[in-house]
Protein backbone atom coordinates (compact mmCIF):
# COMPACT_ATOMS: atom_id res chain seq x y z
CA UNK A 1 0.00 0.00 0.00
CA UNK A 2 1.17 3.48 -0.87
CA UNK A 3 -0.08 6.75 0.57
CA UNK A 4 -1.43 9.22 -1.94
CA UNK A 5 -2.76 12.67 -1.13
CA UNK A 6 -5.33 14.14 -3.47
CA UNK A 7 -6.16 17.80 -2.97
CA UNK A 8 -9.45 18.75 -4.56
CA UNK A 9 -10.11 22.22 -5.98
CA UNK A 10 -11.96 23.27 -2.82
CA UNK A 11 -8.67 22.64 -0.93
CA UNK A 12 -9.99 19.51 0.76
CA UNK A 13 -7.22 17.04 1.47
CA UNK A 14 -7.89 13.33 0.89
CA UNK A 15 -5.10 10.98 1.94
CA UNK A 16 -5.73 7.35 1.05
CA UNK A 17 -3.85 4.06 0.80
CA UNK A 18 -3.69 2.70 -2.71
CA UNK A 19 -2.53 -0.73 -3.74
CA UNK A 20 0.75 -0.86 -5.63
CA UNK A 21 0.31 -1.58 -9.31
CA UNK A 22 -2.88 0.47 -9.65
CA UNK A 23 -2.68 3.94 -11.15
CA UNK A 24 -3.14 7.25 -9.34
CA UNK A 25 -6.35 7.60 -11.40
CA UNK A 26 -7.72 4.26 -10.17
CA UNK A 27 -6.81 5.19 -6.60
CA UNK A 28 -9.02 8.27 -6.90
CA UNK A 29 -11.93 6.51 -8.58
CA UNK A 30 -11.96 3.61 -6.10
CA UNK A 31 -11.89 5.99 -3.15
CA UNK A 32 -14.66 8.23 -4.56
CA UNK A 33 -12.41 11.26 -4.71
CA UNK A 34 -14.27 13.88 -6.73
CA UNK A 35 -12.86 15.69 -9.76
CA UNK A 36 -11.29 12.83 -11.69
CA UNK A 37 -13.64 11.69 -14.44
CA UNK A 38 -11.43 9.17 -16.28
CA UNK A 39 -13.97 8.86 -19.09
CA UNK A 40 -11.88 6.54 -21.25
CA UNK A 41 -11.02 4.27 -18.33
CA UNK A 42 -7.25 4.71 -18.45
CA UNK A 43 -6.59 4.44 -22.18
CA UNK A 44 -4.75 7.77 -22.46
CA UNK A 45 -7.49 8.83 -24.83
CA UNK A 46 -9.49 11.53 -23.08
CA UNK A 47 -7.48 13.76 -20.69
CA UNK A 48 -10.18 13.74 -18.01
CA UNK A 49 -7.97 12.36 -15.23
CA UNK A 50 -5.71 15.40 -15.39
CA UNK A 51 -3.83 16.35 -12.18
CA UNK A 52 -1.10 18.77 -11.14
CA UNK A 53 1.74 16.94 -9.42
CA UNK A 54 3.61 18.85 -6.68
CA UNK A 55 6.92 20.00 -8.19
CA UNK A 56 9.33 17.85 -6.19
CA UNK A 57 7.26 14.74 -6.92
CA UNK A 58 6.79 15.70 -10.55
CA UNK A 59 10.53 15.54 -11.16
CA UNK A 60 10.81 12.11 -9.52
CA UNK A 61 8.21 10.45 -11.76
CA UNK A 62 9.17 8.55 -14.92
CA UNK A 63 8.96 10.87 -17.93
CA UNK A 64 5.76 11.28 -19.91
CA UNK A 65 5.26 9.37 -23.13
CA UNK A 66 4.59 11.47 -26.26
CA UNK A 67 1.00 10.26 -26.28
CA UNK A 68 0.42 11.63 -22.80
CA UNK A 69 1.85 15.02 -23.72
CA UNK A 70 -0.39 15.06 -26.79
CA UNK A 71 -3.46 14.36 -24.67
CA UNK A 72 -2.47 17.08 -22.20
CA UNK A 73 -2.91 19.57 -25.06
CA UNK A 74 -6.62 18.83 -24.67
CA UNK A 75 -6.72 19.06 -20.89
CA UNK A 76 -8.46 21.88 -19.07
CA UNK A 77 -5.90 24.51 -17.99
CA UNK A 78 -2.74 22.44 -18.31
CA UNK A 79 0.40 23.65 -16.50
CA UNK A 80 4.04 22.63 -16.59
CA UNK A 81 3.42 20.11 -13.77
CA UNK A 82 0.38 18.53 -15.44
CA UNK A 83 0.08 14.76 -15.74
CA UNK A 84 -2.60 12.26 -16.64
CA UNK A 85 -3.14 10.33 -13.43
CA UNK A 86 -3.91 7.13 -15.39
CA UNK A 87 -0.27 7.11 -16.48
CA UNK A 88 1.23 7.27 -12.98
CA UNK A 89 1.63 3.76 -11.61
CA UNK A 90 1.51 3.42 -7.84
CA UNK A 91 4.63 1.95 -6.21
CA UNK A 92 6.69 2.35 -3.02
CA UNK A 93 8.81 4.96 -4.84
CA UNK A 94 5.93 7.42 -4.90
CA UNK A 95 4.77 6.84 -1.32
CA UNK A 96 3.50 10.17 -0.02
CA UNK A 97 2.90 11.77 -3.45
CA UNK A 98 0.59 14.80 -3.54
CA UNK A 99 -1.53 15.76 -6.50
CA UNK A 100 -3.86 18.71 -7.02
CA UNK A 101 -7.08 18.10 -8.91
CA UNK A 102 -8.09 20.91 -11.30
CA UNK A 103 -11.35 22.86 -10.96
CA UNK A 104 -12.82 20.71 -13.70
CA UNK A 105 -11.77 18.21 -16.30
CA UNK A 106 -13.33 19.92 -19.32
Amino acid at each position, binding site marked *: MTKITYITYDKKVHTVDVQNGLTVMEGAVQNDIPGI*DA*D*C*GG*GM*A*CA*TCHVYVKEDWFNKLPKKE*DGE*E*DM*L*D*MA*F*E*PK*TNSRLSCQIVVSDEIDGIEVDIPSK*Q*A
Partner: protein
Amino acid sequence: MIKTDALIIGAGPTGLFTAHQLKLIGLSCEVVDNLDKIGGQCIELYPDKPIYDIPAIPECTGEELTNNLINQLKPFDIKFHLNERVEEVKKENNIWLVKTNKSTAFLTPNVIIAGGVGSFEPRKFSPKECQKFEGKSLFYSVKDKNIFKRKVVSIFGGGDSALDWAVELSKDCNVNLVHRRDEFRGAQVTIDKVHSLAKAGKINLFTKYQLAAVVGDQQIESIDIKHDSNEVKSLKTDYVLGFFGLIMKLGPIANWGLNIDKKTVEVDTEKFETNQKGIYAVGDICNYPGKLKLILSGFHEGALAARACFKLARPDEKYRFEFTTSSKIIKERLGVKSD
Protein backbone atom coordinates in the same frame (compact mmCIF):
# COMPACT_ATOMS: atom_id res chain seq x y z
CA MET B 1 -42.89 10.20 -37.27
CA ILE B 2 -40.73 7.11 -37.77
CA LYS B 3 -42.01 3.80 -36.42
CA THR B 4 -39.42 1.18 -35.63
CA ASP B 5 -39.14 -1.96 -33.50
CA ALA B 6 -36.08 -0.58 -31.74
CA LEU B 7 -34.12 2.65 -31.65
CA ILE B 8 -30.41 2.51 -30.88
CA ILE B 9 -28.73 5.58 -29.42
CA GLY B 10 -25.05 5.49 -30.30
CA ALA B 11 -23.26 4.15 -33.38
CA GLY B 12 -20.14 2.83 -31.65
CA PRO B 13 -19.14 -0.84 -31.81
CA THR B 14 -21.79 -1.92 -29.29
CA GLY B 15 -24.58 -0.01 -31.06
CA LEU B 16 -23.54 -1.45 -34.42
CA PHE B 17 -23.46 -5.05 -33.24
CA THR B 18 -26.76 -4.60 -31.40
CA ALA B 19 -28.27 -3.43 -34.70
CA HIS B 20 -26.90 -6.59 -36.30
CA GLN B 21 -28.51 -8.77 -33.64
CA LEU B 22 -31.88 -7.01 -33.98
CA LYS B 23 -31.94 -7.43 -37.74
CA LEU B 24 -30.84 -11.04 -37.46
CA ILE B 25 -33.88 -11.90 -35.36
CA GLY B 26 -36.15 -10.03 -37.75
CA LEU B 27 -36.70 -6.71 -36.01
CA SER B 28 -36.38 -3.30 -37.61
CA CYS B 29 -34.11 -0.67 -36.08
CA GLU B 30 -32.68 2.79 -36.63
CA VAL B 31 -29.58 4.35 -35.13
CA VAL B 32 -28.98 7.93 -33.92
CA ASP B 33 -25.54 9.37 -33.19
CA ASN B 34 -24.36 12.86 -32.34
CA LEU B 35 -21.10 12.47 -34.27
CA ASP B 36 -20.93 13.06 -38.02
CA LYS B 37 -19.61 9.55 -38.59
CA ILE B 38 -20.18 5.95 -37.54
CA GLY B 39 -17.84 4.35 -34.98
CA GLY B 40 -18.14 6.18 -31.66
CA GLN B 41 -15.06 6.31 -29.45
CA CYS B 42 -13.24 3.87 -31.76
CA ILE B 43 -13.34 6.33 -34.60
CA GLU B 44 -13.19 9.56 -32.63
CA LEU B 45 -10.64 8.77 -29.93
CA TYR B 46 -8.42 6.03 -31.26
CA PRO B 47 -8.91 5.27 -34.98
CA ASP B 48 -5.21 4.37 -35.39
CA LYS B 49 -4.60 2.61 -32.09
CA PRO B 50 -4.41 -1.16 -32.23
CA ILE B 51 -6.89 -3.19 -30.15
CA TYR B 52 -5.79 -6.68 -29.10
CA ASP B 53 -8.76 -8.12 -27.23
CA ILE B 54 -11.54 -8.55 -29.75
CA PRO B 55 -12.28 -12.30 -29.85
CA ALA B 56 -10.87 -13.97 -32.97
CA ILE B 57 -9.25 -10.75 -34.18
CA PRO B 58 -5.64 -10.79 -32.93
CA GLU B 59 -5.09 -7.11 -33.76
CA CYS B 60 -7.11 -4.34 -35.37
CA THR B 61 -7.34 -0.56 -35.13
CA GLY B 62 -10.43 1.33 -34.02
CA GLU B 63 -11.07 2.24 -37.63
CA GLU B 64 -10.68 -1.32 -38.88
CA LEU B 65 -13.02 -2.61 -36.21
CA THR B 66 -15.61 -0.02 -37.19
CA ASN B 67 -15.29 -0.87 -40.89
CA ASN B 68 -15.68 -4.57 -40.14
CA LEU B 69 -18.80 -3.94 -38.11
CA ILE B 70 -20.24 -1.76 -40.87
CA ASN B 71 -19.47 -4.56 -43.38
CA GLN B 72 -21.24 -7.02 -41.14
CA LEU B 73 -24.36 -4.82 -41.39
CA LYS B 74 -24.28 -4.73 -45.19
CA PRO B 75 -27.01 -7.35 -45.70
CA PHE B 76 -29.38 -5.19 -43.72
CA ASP B 77 -31.09 -1.95 -44.45
CA ILE B 78 -30.49 0.23 -41.42
CA LYS B 79 -31.09 3.95 -41.32
CA PHE B 80 -28.45 6.01 -39.50
CA HIS B 81 -29.29 9.48 -38.24
CA LEU B 82 -25.87 11.07 -37.80
CA ASN B 83 -25.19 14.55 -36.43
CA GLU B 84 -28.30 14.20 -34.31
CA ARG B 85 -28.59 13.99 -30.57
CA VAL B 86 -31.54 12.41 -28.81
CA GLU B 87 -32.97 15.07 -26.52
CA GLU B 88 -36.20 13.62 -25.23
CA VAL B 89 -37.55 10.18 -24.42
CA LYS B 90 -41.06 9.94 -23.04
CA LYS B 91 -43.78 7.38 -22.76
CA GLU B 92 -46.96 7.84 -24.77
CA ASN B 93 -49.67 5.15 -24.69
CA ASN B 94 -47.22 2.50 -23.55
CA ILE B 95 -44.76 3.23 -26.34
CA TRP B 96 -41.67 5.45 -26.33
CA LEU B 97 -41.71 8.76 -28.16
CA VAL B 98 -38.15 9.85 -28.90
CA LYS B 99 -37.13 13.23 -30.28
CA THR B 100 -33.78 14.48 -31.52
CA ASN B 101 -32.34 18.00 -31.60
CA LYS B 102 -33.15 18.09 -35.33
CA SER B 103 -36.81 17.32 -34.53
CA THR B 104 -36.71 13.79 -35.92
CA ALA B 105 -39.30 11.81 -33.97
CA PHE B 106 -39.51 8.07 -33.43
CA LEU B 107 -42.23 5.84 -32.00
CA THR B 108 -40.83 2.60 -30.67
CA PRO B 109 -41.46 0.01 -27.96
CA ASN B 110 -37.70 -0.34 -27.42
CA VAL B 111 -34.94 2.20 -26.85
CA ILE B 112 -31.40 0.84 -26.55
CA ILE B 113 -28.87 3.26 -25.13
CA ALA B 114 -25.42 2.37 -26.46
CA GLY B 115 -24.07 5.80 -25.71
CA GLY B 116 -20.57 5.11 -24.39
CA VAL B 117 -19.81 7.90 -21.97
CA GLY B 118 -22.38 10.21 -23.54
CA SER B 119 -22.28 12.43 -26.58
CA PHE B 120 -19.16 14.07 -27.93
CA GLU B 121 -18.95 17.83 -27.63
CA PRO B 122 -16.08 20.23 -28.31
CA ARG B 123 -13.74 20.99 -25.42
CA LYS B 124 -13.97 24.65 -24.59
CA PHE B 125 -11.74 27.50 -23.45
CA SER B 126 -11.49 28.07 -19.73
CA PRO B 127 -11.98 31.88 -19.37
CA LYS B 128 -15.64 32.46 -18.49
CA GLU B 129 -16.18 35.38 -20.86
CA CYS B 130 -15.57 33.09 -23.84
CA GLN B 131 -19.12 31.84 -23.60
CA LYS B 132 -20.72 35.13 -24.61
CA PHE B 133 -18.76 35.26 -27.86
CA GLU B 134 -19.38 31.60 -28.71
CA GLY B 135 -20.97 31.15 -32.13
CA LYS B 136 -20.44 34.85 -32.95
CA SER B 137 -16.72 35.53 -32.98
CA LEU B 138 -15.41 32.50 -31.09
CA PHE B 139 -15.82 29.02 -32.57
CA TYR B 140 -14.86 25.41 -31.95
CA SER B 141 -15.39 24.39 -35.57
CA VAL B 142 -15.47 26.22 -38.89
CA LYS B 143 -18.73 26.31 -40.81
CA ASP B 144 -18.03 29.15 -43.24
CA LYS B 145 -14.40 30.13 -43.68
CA ASN B 146 -15.34 33.16 -45.79
CA ILE B 147 -16.29 35.20 -42.73
CA PHE B 148 -12.60 35.26 -41.76
CA LYS B 149 -11.38 36.88 -45.00
CA ARG B 150 -8.88 39.69 -44.35
CA LYS B 151 -9.55 39.49 -40.59
CA VAL B 152 -7.26 38.64 -37.71
CA VAL B 153 -7.92 35.07 -36.57
CA SER B 154 -6.29 33.59 -33.47
CA ILE B 155 -6.20 29.80 -33.57
CA PHE B 156 -5.54 27.72 -30.44
CA GLY B 157 -4.45 24.10 -30.35
CA GLY B 158 -1.63 21.86 -31.51
CA GLY B 159 -3.29 19.05 -33.43
CA ASP B 160 -4.30 18.55 -37.04
CA SER B 161 -7.43 20.72 -36.91
CA ALA B 162 -5.57 23.73 -35.53
CA LEU B 163 -2.65 23.28 -37.94
CA ASP B 164 -4.81 22.62 -41.02
CA TRP B 165 -6.90 25.72 -40.38
CA ALA B 166 -3.82 27.85 -39.66
CA VAL B 167 -2.38 26.85 -43.03
CA GLU B 168 -5.69 27.26 -44.87
CA LEU B 169 -6.65 30.60 -43.34
CA SER B 170 -3.14 32.05 -43.72
CA LYS B 171 -3.96 32.43 -47.45
CA ASP B 172 -6.24 35.39 -46.92
CA CYS B 173 -6.34 36.18 -43.19
CA ASN B 174 -3.89 37.35 -40.60
CA VAL B 175 -3.34 34.21 -38.50
CA ASN B 176 -2.04 33.87 -34.95
CA LEU B 177 -1.39 30.28 -33.95
CA VAL B 178 -1.17 29.79 -30.19
CA HIS B 179 -0.17 26.52 -28.52
CA ARG B 180 0.78 25.49 -24.99
CA ARG B 181 4.12 23.92 -25.95
CA ASP B 182 6.73 23.96 -28.72
CA GLU B 183 5.80 20.55 -30.15
CA PHE B 184 2.78 19.98 -32.35
CA ARG B 185 1.07 16.64 -32.75
CA GLY B 186 -0.28 16.87 -36.33
CA ALA B 187 0.92 15.31 -39.55
CA GLN B 188 4.62 16.12 -40.09
CA VAL B 189 3.94 17.67 -43.52
CA THR B 190 1.50 20.13 -41.96
CA ILE B 191 3.83 20.91 -39.06
CA ASP B 192 6.63 21.68 -41.54
CA LYS B 193 4.25 23.85 -43.55
CA VAL B 194 3.26 25.81 -40.44
CA HIS B 195 6.90 26.43 -39.55
CA SER B 196 7.75 27.60 -43.06
CA LEU B 197 4.70 29.88 -43.14
CA ALA B 198 5.76 31.25 -39.76
CA LYS B 199 9.23 31.93 -41.09
CA ALA B 200 7.74 33.71 -44.10
CA GLY B 201 5.68 35.88 -41.77
CA LYS B 202 2.35 34.42 -42.92
CA ILE B 203 1.53 32.89 -39.53
CA ASN B 204 2.39 34.48 -36.19
CA LEU B 205 3.42 31.60 -33.99
CA PHE B 206 3.09 31.81 -30.18
CA THR B 207 4.16 28.69 -28.32
CA LYS B 208 4.06 28.03 -24.58
CA TYR B 209 1.13 30.45 -24.45
CA GLN B 210 -2.48 29.81 -23.43
CA LEU B 211 -5.61 31.94 -23.60
CA ALA B 212 -5.95 34.07 -20.45
CA ALA B 213 -8.73 36.53 -21.31
CA VAL B 214 -10.98 37.78 -24.10
CA VAL B 215 -11.67 41.50 -24.35
CA GLY B 216 -14.60 43.06 -26.20
CA ASP B 217 -18.21 44.09 -25.94
CA GLN B 218 -20.36 42.57 -28.71
CA GLN B 219 -17.42 41.50 -30.83
CA ILE B 220 -13.99 40.34 -29.73
CA GLU B 221 -11.47 43.19 -29.88
CA SER B 222 -8.41 41.57 -28.41
CA ILE B 223 -7.22 38.60 -26.40
CA ASP B 224 -4.66 38.17 -23.66
CA ILE B 225 -2.38 35.18 -23.90
CA LYS B 226 -0.19 34.05 -21.05
CA HIS B 227 3.25 32.45 -21.35
CA ASP B 228 4.46 29.62 -19.12
CA SER B 229 6.66 32.28 -17.48
CA ASN B 230 3.46 34.26 -16.62
CA GLU B 231 4.24 37.03 -19.11
CA VAL B 232 1.00 38.30 -20.68
CA LYS B 233 0.67 39.49 -24.29
CA SER B 234 -2.32 41.29 -25.75
CA LEU B 235 -3.21 40.45 -29.36
CA LYS B 236 -5.68 42.43 -31.43
CA THR B 237 -8.01 39.86 -32.95
CA ASP B 238 -11.37 39.62 -34.71
CA TYR B 239 -11.99 35.90 -34.35
CA VAL B 240 -10.88 33.13 -32.01
CA LEU B 241 -10.86 29.44 -32.95
CA GLY B 242 -10.26 26.68 -30.41
CA PHE B 243 -9.37 23.11 -31.43
CA PHE B 244 -8.95 20.97 -28.33
CA GLY B 245 -10.73 17.87 -29.55
CA LEU B 246 -13.93 16.45 -28.17
CA ILE B 247 -15.12 15.52 -24.73
CA MET B 248 -17.89 13.13 -23.76
CA LYS B 249 -20.87 14.51 -21.85
CA LEU B 250 -23.72 12.40 -20.53
CA GLY B 251 -26.09 15.13 -21.71
CA PRO B 252 -29.87 14.65 -21.94
CA ILE B 253 -29.70 10.95 -20.90
CA ALA B 254 -29.60 12.23 -17.33
CA ASN B 255 -33.18 13.52 -17.70
CA TRP B 256 -34.96 10.34 -18.78
CA GLY B 257 -35.77 9.03 -15.32
CA LEU B 258 -33.11 6.32 -15.32
CA ASN B 259 -31.11 5.11 -12.35
CA ILE B 260 -27.75 6.76 -12.95
CA ASP B 261 -24.65 6.32 -10.83
CA LYS B 262 -21.27 7.80 -11.73
CA LYS B 263 -22.37 8.60 -15.28
CA THR B 264 -23.48 5.01 -15.92
CA VAL B 265 -26.97 3.50 -16.14
CA GLU B 266 -27.95 0.60 -13.91
CA VAL B 267 -29.31 -2.46 -15.71
CA ASP B 268 -30.21 -6.07 -15.01
CA THR B 269 -28.06 -8.77 -16.58
CA GLU B 270 -30.88 -10.75 -18.17
CA LYS B 271 -32.22 -8.14 -20.56
CA PHE B 272 -29.89 -5.22 -19.87
CA GLU B 273 -33.04 -3.30 -19.16
CA THR B 274 -32.98 -0.13 -17.07
CA ASN B 275 -35.51 0.77 -14.39
CA GLN B 276 -37.78 1.86 -17.28
CA LYS B 277 -39.50 -0.95 -19.15
CA GLY B 278 -38.40 -0.96 -22.78
CA ILE B 279 -35.29 1.14 -22.22
CA TYR B 280 -32.06 -0.81 -22.26
CA ALA B 281 -28.45 0.23 -21.79
CA VAL B 282 -25.51 -1.66 -23.29
CA GLY B 283 -21.77 -1.10 -23.66
CA ASP B 284 -19.69 1.34 -21.62
CA ILE B 285 -22.71 3.28 -20.41
CA CYS B 286 -24.33 0.39 -18.54
CA ASN B 287 -23.46 -0.76 -15.07
CA TYR B 288 -24.08 -4.01 -13.17
CA PRO B 289 -22.07 -6.07 -10.72
CA GLY B 290 -18.92 -7.28 -12.46
CA LYS B 291 -19.26 -4.93 -15.43
CA LEU B 292 -16.15 -4.79 -17.62
CA LYS B 293 -15.75 -1.83 -19.97
CA LEU B 294 -14.64 -3.97 -22.87
CA ILE B 295 -15.97 -3.97 -26.42
CA LEU B 296 -16.58 -7.71 -26.19
CA SER B 297 -18.86 -7.19 -23.17
CA GLY B 298 -20.86 -4.69 -25.21
CA PHE B 299 -21.43 -7.29 -27.91
CA HIS B 300 -22.82 -9.76 -25.38
CA GLU B 301 -25.02 -7.13 -23.76
CA GLY B 302 -26.40 -6.04 -27.13
CA ALA B 303 -27.22 -9.61 -28.14
CA LEU B 304 -29.29 -10.13 -24.99
CA ALA B 305 -30.99 -6.72 -25.15
CA ALA B 306 -32.00 -7.46 -28.76
CA ARG B 307 -33.79 -10.65 -27.66
CA ALA B 308 -35.58 -8.70 -24.94
CA CYS B 309 -36.75 -6.21 -27.59
CA PHE B 310 -38.46 -9.01 -29.48
CA LYS B 311 -41.00 -9.53 -26.71
CA LEU B 312 -42.17 -5.92 -26.75
CA ALA B 313 -42.01 -5.53 -30.53
CA ARG B 314 -43.82 -8.80 -31.31
CA PRO B 315 -45.97 -9.46 -28.23
CA ASP B 316 -48.03 -12.11 -30.03
CA GLU B 317 -45.10 -14.10 -31.38
CA LYS B 318 -42.75 -16.44 -29.65
CA TYR B 319 -39.03 -15.85 -30.09
CA ARG B 320 -37.23 -18.96 -31.22
CA PHE B 321 -33.50 -19.24 -30.76
CA GLU B 322 -31.66 -20.16 -33.96
CA PHE B 323 -28.09 -20.44 -35.18
CA THR B 324 -26.79 -18.53 -38.20
CA THR B 325 -25.09 -21.72 -39.37
CA SER B 326 -28.33 -23.62 -39.79
CA SER B 327 -31.38 -21.34 -39.80
CA LYS B 328 -32.99 -20.96 -43.20
CA ILE B 329 -34.84 -17.82 -42.23
CA ILE B 330 -31.72 -16.15 -40.83
CA LYS B 331 -29.86 -16.99 -44.03
CA GLU B 332 -32.66 -15.38 -45.99
CA ARG B 333 -32.29 -12.24 -43.92
CA LEU B 334 -28.56 -12.29 -44.53
CA GLY B 335 -29.11 -12.83 -48.26
CA VAL B 336 -26.97 -15.96 -48.33
CA LYS B 337 -27.83 -19.31 -49.87
CA SER B 338 -29.06 -22.14 -47.70
CA ASP B 339 -27.44 -25.53 -48.17
